[in-house]
């Protein structure tokens, strides 16, 4: 699904609650909304939160004014619904493994004691995103590892690097501080770099 296709959903049709346009919206964003919900509520509740959010979104579509983009509007509806659920249960957001970084790109022996590279990054033979995505095994490997990211990291990565939301919007949506968001984002990115780097070096996932 490309950005071009994402923008193609017709706002006028959506406001008229057109079945086809709405289904297209669900197809494009259901996965993303789930990622956001999972960063706030337990995985088992996330599905329910998103289902309910779709109903709210559908009902509110005729009144959507377009002051923010439709995706920002939907992300906000889902994050509010998820936070509402937490409040109802008197719970706070808990992250089990938000610290985790995949792979060993930043292992200690990468750097000498003076803080400089002991041996620099290896040469890559696939030096562009296009080239990387042509390699179906690597693409699958990235997909697999995206699923392995801690929920909070995946949500911040999605909102920032896929959906290009500003950091302060992301902090509001997920109820986290700016420094939290930056740490989570950096960890997710380093993990994904590690995955691509490992494949470039070894040809294996």
């Amino acid at each position, binding site marked *: *699904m*490309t*950005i071009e296709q*994402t923008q193609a959903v017709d706002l006028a049709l959506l406001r008229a*609650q057109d*079945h086809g346009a*709405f*289904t*297209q919206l*669900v*197809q*494009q*964003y*259901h*996965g993303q909304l789930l990622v956001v919900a999972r960063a706030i509520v337990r995985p088992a509740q996330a599905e329910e939160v998103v*289902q309910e959010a*779709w*109903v709210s979104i*559908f*009902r509110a579509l005729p009144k959507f004014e377009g002051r923010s983009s439709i995706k920002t509007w939907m992300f906000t509806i889902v994050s509010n619904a998820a936070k509402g659920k937490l409040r109802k249960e008197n719970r706070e957001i808990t992250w089990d493994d938000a610290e985790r970084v995949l792979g060993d790109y*930043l292992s200690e022996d990468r*750097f000498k004691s*003076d*803080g*400089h*590279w002991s041996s*620099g*990054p290896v040469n*890559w033979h696939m*030096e*562009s*995103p296009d080239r*990387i*995505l042509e390699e179906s095994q690597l*693409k699958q490997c*990235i*997909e697999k590892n*995206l699923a392995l990211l801690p929920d909070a990291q995946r949500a911040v*990565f*999605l909102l*920032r*690097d*896929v959906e290009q939301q500003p*950091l302060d919007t992301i902090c509001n949506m997920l109820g986290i501080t700016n420094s939290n968001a*930056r740490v989570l*984002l*950096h960890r997710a*990115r380093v993990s*994904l*770099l590690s*995955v*691509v*780097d490992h494949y470039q070096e070894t040809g294996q996932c």
Partner: protein
Amino acid sequence: MLKCKDIVARSSDYLDGELTSWARINYRVHLMMCTHCRRYLRHFRIAIQAAARVARTGTDPVTAEQISESVQRNS
């Protein structure tokens, strides 16, 4: 003087414009002098862009249709 380890640690802040202007200048000076860090940053950007494109994959059409129908039934 920034070390390579700092360049890596602050690379997300650099890309997101979260460094102060002074820190940003120092960052760039290091990059100018260090081929390893230039390569690191190039790889970092490429990996992020590739992964972002993978992450954009939509839900399968059958599931989307089911959700869409149930939402419209409940509205």
